[in-house]
């Protein structure tokens, strides 16, 4: 399976470094470079981006040579659900208030788990939201509305 690049861990790591490093260098072209004595805001990031690209190339080539695969499976589903639950929380807390945001977060993130028991998640969401409301809103007096927008 030497040429299965899609699951080649070093190839992918190298690719990621090259992409990020390259992006950093390209964007930094808009910033003044200055000189070594008076470095402009573009100097340091350009150097860093280039170094990252070099490391990326090395890691990538090494990956092609060794062909080592990523260990285990990719957990795309839990990753997407967890990320979604966090985004949902940020999106809702401003608009619907803290409690709806937390309940939504609990339900979406619980789907990422192996078993999903509706009653259990509901109970957990209610209990933890109440706890969070107690600690953050009543205890610490954070100005977050429990329900409703800011």
């Amino acid at each position: 399976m030497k040429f299965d690049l899609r699951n080649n861990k070093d190839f992918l790591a190298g690719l990621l470094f090259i992409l990020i490093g390259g992006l950093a260098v390209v964007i930094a072209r808009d910033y003044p470079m200055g000189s070594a004595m008076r470095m402009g805001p573009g100097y340091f990031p350009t150097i860093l981006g280039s170094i990252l690209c070099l490391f990326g190339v090395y890691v990538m080539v090494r990956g092609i040579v060794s062909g080592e695969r990523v260990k285990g499976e990719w957990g795309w589903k839990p990753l997407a659900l967890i990320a979604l639950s966090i985004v949902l929380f940020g999106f809702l807390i401003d608009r619907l208030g803290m409690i709806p945001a937390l309940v939504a977060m609990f339900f979406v993130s619980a789907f990422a788990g192996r078993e999903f028991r509706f009653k259990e998640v509901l109970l957990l969401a209610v209990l933890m939201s109440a706890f969070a409301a107690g600690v953050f809103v009543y205890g610490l007096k954070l100005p977050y509305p429990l329900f409703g927008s800011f």
Partner: protein
Amino acid sequence: MDILNNLVFGFTVAFSLQNLAYCFIGVLLGTLIGVLPGIGPLVTIAMLFPITFNLPAVPALIMLAGIYYGAQYGGSTTSILVNLPGETASAVTCLDGYQMARQGRAGPALAIAAIASFFAGCVGTLLIALAGPPLAEWALLFGAAEYFSLMLMGLTAAAVLTHGDMVKGFAMVVLGLLIGIVGTDVNSGMARYSFGVPELTDGVGFTVVAVGLFAVAEIVVNLELKEAREVFTSKITGLMPTGKDLKDSSWPMVRGTAVGAFFGVLPGTGPALSSFATYLLEKKIARDPSRFGEGAIEGVAAPEAANNAAAQTAFIPMLTLGIPASATMALMLGAMTIQGIVPGPQVMISNPDLFWGLIASMWIGNLMLVILNLPLVGVWVRLLRVPYRWLFPSIIMFSSLGNFSVNNSPVDVYLCAVVGVLGYILVKLECEPAPLLLGYVLGPLMEEYVRRALLISRGDPTVFFTRPISLAFMIATLLILVVMIAPAVRKKREEAH
């Protein structure tokens, strides 16, 4: 014995009912904000600053100082329990502390963290009393070139010595430096890598990076398998460290304290470098370095000692020279000036009650912290018996609320999801997040120092090699590289033959 008299005098000051009470409030508050992700000691002290106007100088400073070193105690708790560093300095504690918790040894890990912190706190306090002024003088020898070389050494060591392979370690450091640069350039005022998002002109917050890289990525790793896997073993072996644990941790604690005290005195390195440095040192000299990252108790004891020792010795430049080492110290200095005390070397003579009382109170505060934290160990450990399917959404809840509370900005929450995705991918590709975090913390500082060093030297890069202290760090950096690369190259050759 002059020092003895002074210390006795300090204790009589610190033992007044009022001072004890403020010391307690300080350390309690410190522990609390240390445990909660998001809020750090700087923000807390800035907010409490006005309250201190109405207090006499001594209790005011005792309380503010308590918050500062108390936060170092609290920061390790979430690192060990859920792989979420509460403060910058406790990021390293995640590496082995969390593994210990998974092996049912959260109790000993938490206890050793508290004990190491206490030990280091006591030594640090004593150092202020005994050697404050000469240490502060020595710290003044460090200019931009020295700091840059020191940080280069720290980053090299971090890249080389953490878990996985070296080249990826370096790449992660550089990636961290780049993330650290996001935001407004201090010299020119230019917003870099902000992609038109106004919130990004302030940079990516520490909590965002720490939560995304450590907590979120770890949760997804635990959930990726279709069949159930035990995240925390149900077999919990003892709440307190065994005799062997204590024996194993005693020297790392001493070394951690020494390293931490060294970095603490230097204004301008921040607490993160000290805990990384001592962790790497322990790993280098360990008989079996492979245990590190798998739950080695030395990997908890040494960095926890280091960050607390650093928190104590950071007071040295402020108290003896009137030079604050960090923004937090600058605020405390401000609290002193507001009270009409002129900061500087004469404080020891003009306000002995403040100087010696504060030192004595630090020792008392450390004692309070250990008394406060050891009984809590049992409570924390019980938390881990909660089924993981309940635990992980709750961790996400606290992390997200913590992220949101820093700026009340949903953008921070979104960013955390992005960093979490990146963090998970990096973990899967076997890239260690710890060097990235160190790079992220040091990135803006390194840039500032290298630019300043070259400005002062009129663009002459040999400045890093002609100044003796800087040269020493550069040589050390090279040695680290040679020592680490040589065996790898030899191995490669043998394989080729």
